[in-house]
Structure formats: structure tokens, C-alpha cells
């Protein structure tokens, strides 16, 4: 997993869940293990829009991308502009 993206996901989740989130593993499931629902997933994505410079279209999301930290970071790596991933 891209360390820069994981750090931004941890920061976003800490805001959404109102507690510090660190040490995320690729296998951690967003709904079952981190207790997110569709609204909190979207709130996390709104945080990541700012921190990763991505643009989310809420009408066209595949929930398969939000099953685990691994699938989420892979999705973010696909949609994040390259400069955001430099200097990690």
C-alpha cells in the first residue's frame, strides 16, 4: 500500500470516527472492523478530496472499492493525480 495514501486515510478516518486511527492493515474491513457506514465512507472521501486532490462523483462509486483498506487505497491510487503521490 502507498504509505502517503495510507497516512491520509488514517488522518481522514481519525476525523470521521473522532478517535485516532493508526496502523491500518490492508485487510482491515471498513464496515465491519472500522464500523463505517455509507455516510461515513462518503465523509471520509470528502476529507480525502482535499488532502489527496481527488474529485469524487457520489453517483458513480463502486462499493466494492470500499470493502477494505487495501481496496480503498488501490482505488485512491487509481484516481489520485500523480503529483500527490510524489515525495512520499
Amino acid at each position: 500500500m502507498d504509505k502517503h495514501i495510507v497516512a491520509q486515510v488514517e488522518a481522514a478516518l481519525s476525523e470521521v470516527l473522532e478517535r485516532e486511527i493508526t496502523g491500518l492493515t490492508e485487510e482491515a474491513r471498513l464496515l465491519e472492523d472500522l464500523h463505517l457506514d455509507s455516510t461515513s465512507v462518503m465523509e471520509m472521501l470528502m476529507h480525502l478530496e482535499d488532502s489527496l486532490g481527488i474529485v469524487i462523483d457520489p453517483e458513480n462509486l463502486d462499493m466494492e472499492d470500499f470493502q477494505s483498506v487495501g481496496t480503498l487505497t488501490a482505488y485512491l491510487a487509481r484516481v489520485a493525480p500523480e503529483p500527490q503521490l510524489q515525495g512520499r
Partner: protein
Amino acid sequence: MSASLGTLERVEFHVPDRRLTIEALAEPLGLSRPKLSLFRKVHGLHTLHDDPDSSLFDLVLPAARRVVEQAPDPRRIRWVIYAHAIHEVAPADTDLAAGIRDALGLRHAEAFALSQQNCASGLGAVDVAAQLLRDGDAADRVLVVTGEKPHSPLIRTVPNTAIMGEASAACLVSVGGTGDTVRSYVSHTLGEYAQLVGMSPEQAALYGKAYAPTLADVVRQAVAEAGLTLADIDLVIPHNVNLMAWRNTVAELGISQNRVFLDNVPRYSHCFAADPFVNYASLRDAGRLVEGRHYLMACVGAGATFTALTLTHRRGDTR
């Protein structure tokens, strides 16, 4: 064919003239940029109406007056029900229901309030009205009034879910009168989410996961009790909580999103218990309600009560 539960004879609504974007509320509500993006981009809430200089009576009376003026005989309005979501809409020594009744010149009527189902109280009041009228004189009517003011930041938002605007609506309910035939009413409460404020993120997530499946179940049950199928429903007339709740619910129901009237979500945002009536009147005024076709009104109240009501549109005296 199910029996009629009652008739919606007239429905009217009112919104204050002043309209603002949700961005204007970011600072007073302490909304961060991501929270604001959640409300605008994900939930589809863009503007709302609000007049901080007007009273609750200024908000609710215009719609209620229009209904009373069109009533066949206002003297036969036996009950006035003020259905509100916020429990404390006025100081404890103020009887708002009686105040509304008196301002409408209906002192002969009995007035009371319904509130415990929060935003679902409005559709619940139609059911209560029909039960009050059952076995009574066919000339009797009940006036249901909704509308309230988000008078504090705590009430102005449902965290991560909705921003509240001002609108009021009133409807006249009869049994056997001319107007929309109410064919079924279903209400289901998940009491485990009774804590309205301060749910933990984990509790909120459990509620979030239960929301769309529960609402979809209530919708299906209301349709079945009306002797109909989902394919028979021309349009769902929803509450304006947000687009995401309805995207999830239509996915549960397996219907297209264009079967739900969502045009007013970005315009009015969530107006407590008034939403389904405001949306009904918007559709009627736009000529989108068709004689003889079936519609389903739905609303969810925090706490959490899920309601759905099916009706068959009959123009009759309903404007």
C-alpha cells in the same frame, strides 16, 4: 383492493421568501469544508428557506389558512393537530396547537400536538386523523398542521445527515370526502436508536446501515397493504433528508431513482415533518399527479420511526 383509510382533501404549503445557500450556515454551524462537501455534493442539499425575523405562527398559518378557507365547512373541522418534530418548539406554558387553532378562527375545534415520532409525526398525524374520524359524522374534518423553525444550531442539523430549512404544510383529512384516497399507512420504530443527540460513531453507523433496508421494508409493506405492487406506484413522494438516503433506499427496492421525487431536496433541504406534504403540493401544482394513479409518501423520524402512506390521486376538491 384495500379499504380507504381516509381522504386527503386539501394540501397547501408555505415557505418564507428568504433563501440562502448552505454555505451561509457553515460558520454558525461550525461545518468544516469536508462536512460542507458531504452535505452539498453527497447529500445534495444546496439551499434552504429561512426567516429569522418571523415567528412560528408566521410560518405555519399561511398554509393552514388556505386549507381552512377552502374547507367545505370550517365549522366541521373538529380537530386541529399540530404535528412537530422538535419536542420543545415553545416554552412549556405555551400551547401551540391551541394557538394555531385560535388564530385560524376554529375555537370550536379540539386542538392537540403530536411530536414523539419526530419528522415522521406528520404522516402519523394523518393516520391519527383518520382514526379520530372513523365511525363519526362524514361531514367532520381534521386539520393537520406541520412546520417548525430550527431555532438553535443543535436543531439546525442532523449530524452528517441533514440541514434543516423552514417550510410549513397543512392538510385537511376526511373519511369518504373527495380527494386523494389514503389506501394504507405503515409505521415501524427502531427504538434502539432513540438517542437523538450524541450517538457514538459506531451507533450512528449501525443506524446508517439499518436505514435504507428498514425504509424499503416499510415502503414494500405499505404498497402490499394497499393491494398494490411497486410497479403500480407512479412516484414516491419522499422526505427531503438527503439524496444519499434515497439512493440507498431505491437500491434496496430495486427501482430507478427517477421514481422518487427528489427535485425539492436541493431547493428546500429537510423541513422536519412538512416534507412529504410540501413535495405532494409541488407535484400537484406542477401537474404531475395524475387522476387515478397511485403514489407513496414516505418519511423517517429520528429516534427512529419509518413511515409510508399510499394514496390514489383523485382530483375532487383537492387543489
